[in-house]
């Protein structure tokens, strides 16, 4: 029987550890990809393209799949988004492109993410190189942090002809794509291959170098014509409850990182785990724990299902993985014996009447303490900012918003003219995501080019995808002709 036509049925107990950590979605077969691509209507001024933060020309890349021009398809994606392979896997597509697809209404949305992955995989398999380093402009830019924001900025700048050096604290570039996103969503190899493509554009990658420790920021600024700060966020904050330092209480990000860099069989995990938090990281930790083999995984969250920060599809995925949820539950103490975790003491919460802002605050129910027996507690309640680093930037007059670096949204420039920033470290509002970080890198690269050369970016580079202007052909066609159509969309509606 044709294996590839069998629906994937996930029965953890029937699969090996390695199998459980394969990508959740199998790649599309050629036939599936072509059928799906042909379902796309090829909308004009397509809403999916508007919804993509990097404005990939989605109808065009899908059409290219349908005509068998998969190489061209991958190029179309990469022109707008150098992290196309990561984004294809990790983007919350239901909230972005696919959520905006016009077929949402009377059919079902096009599987844009999986088609994107199909094209990117094809180009990787064939080892197609799309871009080269631009003719040298004789100017230097340093990038601090080689996550999606830093890598994208580096790549786009290299295409323009800058000499770019990325400084990265970790052993490998890629930021959270390499170290933070669960392998069954994005394998490490994909993230590393993507970073390699940036290096192949002539970007110098200095890994294992922490700016502020190994090299001082002042030095970097002195040696370069511009600096792009993309340091992301740091570790999970303290919960400030008794027993937090006990053995068996771990930082969720460290837990995930282990599954990315270590052989799966070497990872220590508890059999009964409490995960604290209900955001994306918490869901990832819980589902990883289940796939590692943990029998009981409970998410502890102080508010209700309606307030949880994880996306609905993530919640459903976790439920499908057999994760249980304890909503309206606040941890108050980690209990243990001989310094080892044995339980999590919690209190029940209630949602109070809405306050002026309409928000229902969670308040503890008196005398409702109870203990969840467990041998591991994973903290996943957000990420700290790199406060010392950002404080240092303060010396250059750089402002912050809620602890994040403040930038001008059109250029991603900080208050200091040579310092730009992007990615999670500036995300004071909106969802932190790979694709937003990527777009930040592009915006900064363009602004750096324009500022340092004093010229608008060359035609055909970055333009099409960063400016959502109406069809340039329409504008030019209109400008050129004497006998104009009576009503012109570009003139009247935009």
């Amino acid at each position, binding site marked *: *029987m044709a294996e590839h036509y069998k629906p994937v049925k996930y029965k953890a107990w029937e699969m090996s550890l390695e199998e459980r950590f394969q990508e959740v979605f199998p790649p599309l077969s050629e*036939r599936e990809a072509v059928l799906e691509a042909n379902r796309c209507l090829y909308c004009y001024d397509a809403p999916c393209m508007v919804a993509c933060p990097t404005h990939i020309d989605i109808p065009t890349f899908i059409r290219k799949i349908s005509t068998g021009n998969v190489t061209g398809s991958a190029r179309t994606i990469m022109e707008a988004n150098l992290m196309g392979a990561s984004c294809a896997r990790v983007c919350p597509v239901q909230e972005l492109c696919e959520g905006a697809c016009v077929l949402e209404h009377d059919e079902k949305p096009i599987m844009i993410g999986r088609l994107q992955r199909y094209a990117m995989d094809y180009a990787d398999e064939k080892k197609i190189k799309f871009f080269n380093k631009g003719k040298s402009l004789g100017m230097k830019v340093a990038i601090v942090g080689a996550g999606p924001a830093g890598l994208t900025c580096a790549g786009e700048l290299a295409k323009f002809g800058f000499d770019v050096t990325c400084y990265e604290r970790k052993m490998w570039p890629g930021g959270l794509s390499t170290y933070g996103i669960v392998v069954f969503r994005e394998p490490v190899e994909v993230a590393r291959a993507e970073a390699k493509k940036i290096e192949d554009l002539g970007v110098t990658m200095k890994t294992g170098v922490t700016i502020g420790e190994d090299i001082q920021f002042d030095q970097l600024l002195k040696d370069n014509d511009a600096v792009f700060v993309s340091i992301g966020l740091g570790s999970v904050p303290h919960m400030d409850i008794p027993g937090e330092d006990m053995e068996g209480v771990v930082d969720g990000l460290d837990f995930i990182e282990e599954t990315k860099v270590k052989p799966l069989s070497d990872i220590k995990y508890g059999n009964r785990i409490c995960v604290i938090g209900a955001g994306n990281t918490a869901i990832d930790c819980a589902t990883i724990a289940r796939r590692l083999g943990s029998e009981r995984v409970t998410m502890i969250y102080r508010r209700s299902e309606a307030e949880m920060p994880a996306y609905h599809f993530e919640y459903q995925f976790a439920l499908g993985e057999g994760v249980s949820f304890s909503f309206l539950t606040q941890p108050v103490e980690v209990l243990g014996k001989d310094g080892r975790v044995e339980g999590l003491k919690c209190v029940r919460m209630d949602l109070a009447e809405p306050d002026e802002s309409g928000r229902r605050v969670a308040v503890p129910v008196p005398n409702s303490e109870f203990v969840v027996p467990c041998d591991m507690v994973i903290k996943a309640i957000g990420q700290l900012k790199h406060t010392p680093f950002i404080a240092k930037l303060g010396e250059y007059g750089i402002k912050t918003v809620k602890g994040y670096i403040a930038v001008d949204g059109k250029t991603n420039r900080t208050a200091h003219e040579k310092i730009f920033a992007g990615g999670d470290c500036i995300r004071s509002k909106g969802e932190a995501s790979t694709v937003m970080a990527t777009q930040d890198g592009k915006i900064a690269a363009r602004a750096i080019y324009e500022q340092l050369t004093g010229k608008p970016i060359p035609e055909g580079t970055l333009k099409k995808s960063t400016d959502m202007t109406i069809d340039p052909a329409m504008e030019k066609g209109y400008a050129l002709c004497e006998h104009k*159509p009576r009503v012109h969309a570009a003139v009247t509606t935009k």
Partner: protein
Amino acid sequence: MADLSIDFNGIKSPNPFWLASAPPSNSGYQVQKAFEAGWGGAVWKTVGAPVLNVCNRYGTIDYKGRKIIGLNNVELISDRPLEVNLKEMAEAKRNFPNHAVIASVMVESKKEAWQEIIKRIEDTGVDGFELNFGCPHGMSERGMGSAMGQVPEYTCMVTEWVMEVATRPVIVKLTPNVTDIVQPARAAVKAKASALSLINTINSIMGVDLDSFEIKPNVGGKGGHGGYAGPAVKPIALHLLSSVASDPEYQQSRIPISGMGGVETWQDAVEFMLLGATSVQVCTAVMHFGFRIVDDMIDGMSNWMDERGFKNCTDFIGKSLPRISSFGDFDLGFQSVARIDHNKCIQCNLCFIACNDTAHQCIDLKDMKLTDEVTERLWPVVREEDCVGCALCASVCPVDDCITMTEIDTGRPHITWNQLIKEKPEVLQWDKMIEYREKNHIHIH
């Protein structure tokens, strides 16, 4: 990167993709916007005799959820004043000197009328002309369009009139609504036309409404034949193109052909070019999706050329033409049989029923014990000795590469029909034919 530019008997174009003479090339705005989008050339919507159009002038056929596999129209030639068209042609050519701007023309069958309009258009600076001898509706009733194209003598005569005055290349556009397209093609060659283009639209009626009994498309309660185009006509267009392109008399003239009829993707375009077209024209696909489709046409074709090491279009134009042959010259000893890959088979049994009901009953459903499921379904299995290699099962199979037609050697003599009846004319009698088959172990049950 591959060089897509072409030289079409003196008409230069940055790529082989042209808008066909039709609504997309109706005005200066459209043609210039199309050039901006990447089109290499445009054959202007036919200008000439004064006309008035009707509403509901297009009818389309959808196929199982996919829109517009075919489009028909009862549209006439340009209904904009000639003066305006000429002005805009001049403007487009001025703004896009390196693109191909070609004027399509149709007037009544009078020498003065043709010669006068050609001279007037020449002043606009266009790169060439296309003579519309193909419009199958409205104009033909007035003695123009296909009424001329269907009579080789008229085609020749009018082309000669034009050639007398034209100083730029003249393309003769042929109608498919004839028994043998080679005849009008030869007529154009005889008149020293600079190039040919084909096909114009095919006579058609799109359908009938089951509730109102109206004809589709419905023009105020009435309907009539219109010209059919779009993806559905491509095989017909390819055939007509290859008949002309492989005609020895045409080949002697060495003039180029602009191919069209159902071109929607770069792959379609490559096929037309492999069969001898130097440029391709597109109408319906542009009407469906807009000028932007040219982006993938250019990209896809140049990637395809790069992958194969073709530097210029001339490296592959006409490359498949030598393979165009006819039944009498096919190898009767070429044998293939259907082979099913049971690792891929999804057991829909469409192959079985197709072969059983409509081919040669040589697929059996058998208990093969290929899985260890108790409820294992029966598997389709080809009895190769009975398979005539018709390829129907492979055509209906929904799984890619599941049924392959595999060439085998059965020891049948490699001989063509033409050779056979020359060597053994007696096989034209059934009894002798049976004798010949027995001798050569050809068993057809």
